């Protein structure tokens, strides 16, 4: 239960870090509450995958990663670059769908739909791999676990604890009556993407430089 409580106690901070990624996306889609829940589930699945892979990783690296600022910067930088690349891609890729009927037929539609799921999943994965402060805390704690199973269990409960705070996000669907919201969401996603890209790139550059 340590992971769950750690997740609960730091989940609000997690939400603060994930919200800039998730909220513009949900606004950008302009879908209903139910559809947003499905989007959130895909996002959370991605995050869970990220967390579980880190559970394996944390068990492997034990205490070395949190102390090593160079590798830490490289990893955070890479996560930021991936995340921002996805966000910017999303802003431009989706904004290019000018004709409403263009995505509603045949293979093209199915491809776009599957890309959308993959997109959400990978975005969740990227935030899952993202070394935000509560996550670093989790990594450091998990790295002290004796076995791989314990480490995985720790991350699973940590994930459940932090996810509680993302539950209200789908209710943003209630705002979809305000028609400019999708455009605003996409523009905001692009802006935040640019910010993360810069932070990621400088971290990577700093990491390599050292």
């Amino acid at each position, binding site marked *: 239960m340590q992971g769950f409580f750690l997740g609960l106690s730091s989940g609000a901070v997690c939400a603060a870090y994930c*919200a*800039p990624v998730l*909220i513009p996306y949900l606004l950008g889609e302009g879908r209903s509450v139910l559809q947003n829940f499905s989007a959130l589930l895909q996002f959370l699945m991605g995050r869970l995958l990220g967390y579980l892979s880190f559970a394996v990783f944390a068990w492997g690296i034990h205490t070395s990663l949190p102390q090593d600022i160079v590798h830490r910067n490289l990893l955070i930088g890479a996560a930021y670059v991936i995340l921002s690349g996805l966000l910017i891609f999303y802003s431009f890729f989706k904004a290019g769908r000018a004709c409403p009927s263009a995505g509603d037929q045949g293979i093209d539609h199915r491809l776009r739909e599957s890309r959308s799921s993959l997109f959400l999943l990978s975005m969740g994965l990227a935030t899952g791999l993202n070394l935000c402060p509560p996550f670093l805390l989790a990594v450091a704690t998990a790295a002290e676990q004796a076995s791989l199973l314990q480490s995985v269990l720790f991350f699973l409960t940590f994930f459940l604890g932090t996810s509680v705070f993302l539950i209200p996000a789908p209710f943003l669907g209630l705002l979809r009556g305000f028609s*400019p919201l999708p455009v*605003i969401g996409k*523009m*905001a996603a692009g802006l*935040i993407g640019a910010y993360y890209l810069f932070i990621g790139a*400088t971290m990577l550059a700093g990491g390599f430089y050292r």
Partner: protein
Amino acid sequence: MTKEHPSQGKTVGVRQSPGKSFLLALPMMLLTLMMMSGGKIPADPQRLFVFAVTYLFFNLLFFLMIHTGKTDRYRATAFITYALLFIVSFISHMFEARGSMSLSEEKIILCEVPFCHLVIPMTLIPAALTKTIIFPGMITGGFASIASMFTIWIGASLSLGRGWCSWGCFFGGLDDAFSRILKKPLLRKIDPRWTYLPWAVLLAVVLTAAAFLSPTYCTWLCPFKTVTEFQAVTSFKILVQTIIFVSLFIALVIVLPLLTKRRTQCSLFCPFGAMQGLTNRINVFDVRIDPHICTNCKRCVKACPTLSVTEESVRAGRPLMSCMKCGTCVDVCPSGAAAFHVRGTPVEGNRNIKRLLFLYAAFLFLAIFSGGTIQDGLSRIIRLITTGSMI
């Protein structure tokens, strides 16, 4: 004096006789005298001269507003003068206090950075959740304290709504000035979707400010740092930030307003302005377009410097929420269909009273808020001419 509109046969009040204009401007003369002097006329000859020039400047403009029935050209004269002299005054103060325009680490550590209204949207969530303000300024006391700026913002929101952006903001006069230089726009087409960008900037900066507990708009984007104060370039990160805000200043405050004749920074980027649009919903003054008089000439659509009047909004009888109440549409409307309005009252009738009520609130705000800065700016210029230095 009134003018008969030929096509509609309606009487549209536009001008007042000099005598009546003087009488209507008299309360403004008394109020500005009281507020600008603080009840004490300066004894020092130079300060008295500067005070008299400023006082006469404002009251002449207000008199002309009433006499000619035109709002925007006189508002803009005062508004642009304010922005220019604000820069003169602010930069001189910075040089006096710290020897340069760049913010030193010392000032940040001591929390002595002047607070400006553009930071307000980013401070709200952290203030609600942590009871702290994420800015290295002073809560009360000193120059441009946080509580003082919040008080002015609340007062402006209650009395003017987004009219703040055309009557109060000390930066707005800059892109307003550049948007007036060319007679005709070189770039006419602006995709209306760009008008959503301020909301996106608002969303992005509010979320990132809450996540990083840092005023991200000030750090990364604010173009007006170019003409006020900025962090000294001591790292690659600050260099990138500097390149971004200087580029935004050149693009949004100089080049695009010149090319489009629109206030692009205020209407296509400013996150504070977007948030301020919400206060238009609770403000008593607005602009209405009377569909019974409107000839659908679209002059207001073409002239609106903030892209707040669209063909749909004309049909709806009012500008968009982003309206800054500058009065351009009211001035260019040949039929008098566009007019300042007081909520709760009928659109037709008593137009001059409604306009006067709005002008009293708006012009008074501008005169009081800018009076001290304009006097200081003028003093600095006189000092420059007589001594060769503004400091």
